[in-house]
């Protein structure tokens, strides 16, 4: 049964769905951003688990390090890039939140959009 064996991946997928739920359903925009970060982290967990290897060692050459036992270094390198991207998106999202709060005085998404309808109508 691969699902049990792949429980790292399964946890990552469940986290992904929790994050997506938070982004869609939460009304507070900071919580939405937290949801985004949960989604990002779940994908990082997923990718790093792909690189896992039973009984693996860190991919650093040195005395006693056997290349055939090392874990896969490629996902780790990709995740480093992914983390930087996540940080950048979060920084931008938070600065938009700061600006929204200054201008509307609320973090509640339903109030932000209700005002939009009033202005249009």
């Amino acid at each position, binding site marked *: 049964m691969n699902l049990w064996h792949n429980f790292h991946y399964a946890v990552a997928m469940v986290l992904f769905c929790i994050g997506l739920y938070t982004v869609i359903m939460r009304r507070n925009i900071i919580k939405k951003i937290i949801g985004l970060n949960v989604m990002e982290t779940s994908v990082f967990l*997923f990718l790093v688990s792909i690189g896992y290897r039973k009984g693996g060692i860190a991919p650093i050459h040195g005395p006693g390090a056997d290349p055939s036992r090392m874990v896969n270094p490629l996902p780790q390198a990709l995740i480093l890039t992914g983390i930087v991207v996540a940080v*950048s*998106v979060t920084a*931008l*999202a938070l600065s938009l939140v700061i600006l929204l709060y200054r201008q509307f005085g609320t973090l509640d998404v339903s109030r932000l959009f209700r005002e939009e309808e009033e202005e249009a109508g």
Partner: protein
Amino acid sequence: MSGAFKHLPIMMITLPMLGAALMPFVSYLRREAVPWVSALFLVVSGVLGLLLAGRIPPDGCVGYRLGGWEPPFGIELKVDFAGYFLMMVVCGISLLALLYSRLYIIREVEGGKITAYYVLFLLLSASMMGFVVTGDIFNLFVFMEILAISSYALVAVTGNRNAVRAAFKYLLMGAPSSIMVLLGIGLLYSATGTLNMADLAARVGETGYREVLIASFAVLVLAFMVKAAIFPLHLWLPDAHSIAPSPMSAMLSGLVVAVSAFAIARIAFSVFTVHSWGVVGTTLDALAAAGAAAVLFGGIMAIYQRDFKMMIAYSTISHMGYIVLGFTALNPEGLTGAVYHVLDHGIAKACLFLCAGNFIYRKGYRRIDQLKGAWREMPWTCFAFALAAWSVIGLPPSAGFISKWYLVYGNVKADRVPYAVVLLIGAILAAVYCFRIIYYMFFQPGEEGAWRDQVMDAPAGMLAPTWALSLATLFFGVFSYLFLDSLLKAAASLLA
């Protein structure tokens, strides 16, 4: 291709990045020089691109190994003719929009943020150029992120409350889709163990994990559908594109969404190739249905708009449907139509947004009925608008006619007559919303005091890019034979 010429594509991508990194220095020395120096970097990039003309074989591609590592191990750029063509389109339209920004942007953006605006602009063009030629799927993700972050910020750059709200909405739809792209790449990597597109294409056919591949393709297509604003997932587009500063709207509407739509074609043809048509086919059929819905929905919504930037934004949704219907026909004619449509949609949409910018700059008008009688005061802008609208509708001899001809031809050839009919209906809808504005501008008397009787058009620095774009729609219509043969060959080799 040998000698120094092989380095040209990478220089085209990295020079604007360098320019962006140097911009704080330029701003420190002389703030007025920032727009000119940014334009200089794009000009150099474009000249390098022109030097490449004729050196890219139409039926093959030129690989460039970054760091000298052979493909599955290092990153490779794969410059085929379609990619090169799109790179030049991105470079040209960006340059004109950048030149237009110089006068326009000081009205809408505070002085302290102007350097940041040009930095983001250069990064946006560099990332799009990298996005269309990269041969590595993770590198595609990296470029997509630069593109996404700079677009979110450029929507909000005016600091106006509606703009910030539109940018946040864009981010809330865009960021999850970026994460989904990463998830799709992860699934693909777990089933194949490689990230290079050519190597993936070879491995996709032989690997046993079909469910994982299907899931990966579905996730990637869904994510890029959000980025390209294809019908059910278009919700962010009208706000973001209509509220952004006009030269930015031109970039977002003309290039960013179209390039994202092209990425779907790239992934479908360069990664999930013929081996897995069964896998890919169903998803692409669903995508085509969404595209057809987009053509109709965007066209009908555009007719009902009162704000003209909003109308152009809905027209973009409709045109994304055209591009999707083009490449899902799975024949060279359809794909050629899609690639040529990226060009002429980019030019015409950018021109329309720049005209809208002229009206906003001079008069502050945003409503369609305020345009009645506009030609008396701003004839040049009105004529440019009419020429671009001609291409949006797709009437000969404009470039829009050529691409729509190929799109319809490709769909008929693929036995998809209903979709060909949808394309024609889309053109009729476009005629309705475009001719309404043209009628208002030229044949309706304006309201009392809305327009002066003497000519007071936008400054030459803004009219020149607008006219360059509107003449380009004619140029690429009349001289389309220069490109079409090579594009057909390139499309055939992309599908092979």
